[in-house]
């Protein structure tokens, strides 16, 4: 039985790459991570905020790898939305942070999908795990949606990692005007495999589109998390093994609850009861 693993990380950098968006580099011994996995980190030493905050892993820093800092570690990319991320944004080089992880089951390209057209679909901060996945894949079609021009830079990692990138903005200030799922409708065929992460409405639409054309789709979900390790049963989503086509108008009964933290965060899009989300 293992003793407590190393949860002590040290801030290498914490840069505001866009107003309100921070890239956090952490020196961390436990930095073995797969795309789509996440960490739970304590933002403060006190009890307000009380719980750890889940953040997806943006990249792995390997000593001797492309990004060399002489340290192993991870990169996180986060948006300041509340008190936890606010406190996090004030951390400076050398500060200690308590990090649990890597957690969950991430994105994988299954053998049976290897010959399919890979589509990486993301909205807003949903790009975090998919940029990491793109690096592992080295190719694919990335579709990215965001509010406006200001956030388009978030998706730059897709190109760097060898993907074709198409962008949609809600206000049309960059790329095409519309939603990422509008782009998806262009690109998707029954021979596509879609990996998606972003707002729940986007994921729901993605699952419906994929089901309609008969494509495979995997989605990374978000839920408020207390433990991150499958113990509190707090991050439940209604799910269940079924092989039928998703029918947004019908209600799927008798589905078990799955835990986003330990069963996911990546699920087969056809496996989620979207009506109950």
């Amino acid at each position: 039985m293992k003793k407590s693993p190393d949860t002590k990380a040290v801030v290498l950098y914490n840069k505001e790459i866009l107003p309100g968006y921070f890239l956090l580099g952490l020196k961390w011994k436990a930095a073995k991570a797969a795309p789509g996995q996440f960490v739970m980190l304590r933002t403060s030493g006190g009890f307000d905020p009380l719980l750890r905050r889940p953040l997806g892993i943006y990249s792995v820093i390997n000593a001797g790898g492309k990004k060399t800092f002489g340290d192993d570690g991870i990169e996180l990319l986060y948006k300041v939305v509340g008190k936890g991320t606010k406190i996090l944004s004030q951390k400076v080089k050398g500060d200690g942070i308590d990090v649990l992880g890597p957690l969950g089951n991430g994105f994988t390209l299954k053998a049976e999908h290897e010959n399919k057209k890979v589509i990486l679909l993301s909205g807003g901060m949903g790009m975090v795990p998919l940029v990491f996945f793109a690096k592992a894949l080295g190719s694919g079609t990335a579709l990215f949606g965001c509010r406006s021009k200001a956030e388009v830079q978030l998706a730059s990692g897709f190109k760097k990692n060898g993907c074709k990138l198409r962008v949609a903005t809600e206000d049309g200030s960059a790329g095409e005007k519309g939603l990422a799922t509008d782009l998806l409708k262009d690109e998707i065929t029954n021979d596509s495999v879609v990996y998606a992460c972003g707002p729940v409405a986007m994921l729901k639409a993605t699952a419906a589109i994929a089901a309609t054309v008969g494509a495979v789709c995997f989605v990374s979900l978000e839920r408020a998390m207390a433990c991150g390790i499958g113990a509190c049963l707090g991050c439940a989503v209604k799910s269940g093994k079924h092989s039928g086509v998703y029918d947004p108008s019908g209600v799927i009964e008798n589905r078990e609850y799955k835990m986003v933290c330990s069963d996911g965060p990546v699920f087969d899009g056809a496996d989620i009861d979207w009506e109950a989300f």
Partner: protein
Amino acid sequence: MKKPARVKLKSNPLEVVIAGVKFKNPVMTASGTFGYGSEFAAYTDLNKLGAIVVKGLSLKPRAGNPGPRTVETPCGMLNAIGLQNVGVDAFIKDKMPFLRGVDTRVIANIFGETIDEYAEVAHRLDNCPGVSALEINISCPNVKKGGIVFGTDPLQAYAVVKAVKDAARLPVITKLSPNVTDIKVMVKAVEDAGTDAISLINTLTGMAIDVEKRRPYLKNVTGGLSGPAIRPVAVRLCWEAKKVARVPLVGMGGIMTASDALEFLIAGADAVQVGTASFVDPDAAVKIASGIADYLKRHAMTLGELVGSIRV
């Protein structure tokens, strides 16, 4: 005085006996916050725990409530899990083999929608090797039937405890709800029914509203408040219960550190449970046990001397 002190140094200074069961230390993990133990195996040394109290067990597996099931509040959290669990039979078959391999005590937290269900769950666990005691949850606020009704009515509480005692030979710990006018009445009721120990507190019923959506954060509307926010209420109830209790007490509610645990021991609890803290730090319970040992050493006290040592 010197000789016994030397003898004590050789034995385990944290050992405690509750309801006839010997625990290696007075720090247990609270039900529902530590899964079935295995979830934490990678993050802490389970062998160093006084006991693992497992997630509440019902007769049949339960799916639990729709989400969202948790929301953070100031220095606390609300949960409305709805007692999702694998059911008592799957627990015995699938979860106990792992737990038997851990060098700690296992306490099975049990729950029923009817008195008969409580009795039946207790009965099935009674013959399961490795289960050291039963903890009766008469106080879960997040299910429609049972739960809180038993926990706030002394007559119903009496009936549940009596039925469990009749159904099982295992020692019984009854877990009380804080959502009552007078905890002393509940203490007496469950003692009269033959409980071997009392644990307290379960969560306070609370609610949080998303003001932008004008909806409760929890799908279940209300949930149970846990974490440091509730500690002053928990310590007070423990101290009040101690005034009348004849059986040992297991205190909990917002214990994050050894110092917090000491408040309960000093107020009169023989042992403590660590709940929400395990989410913040999976190693919390182990750290708390070692912090209590440090305190006893620093103050040259035994655990027995510490318990109930408050001077008011």
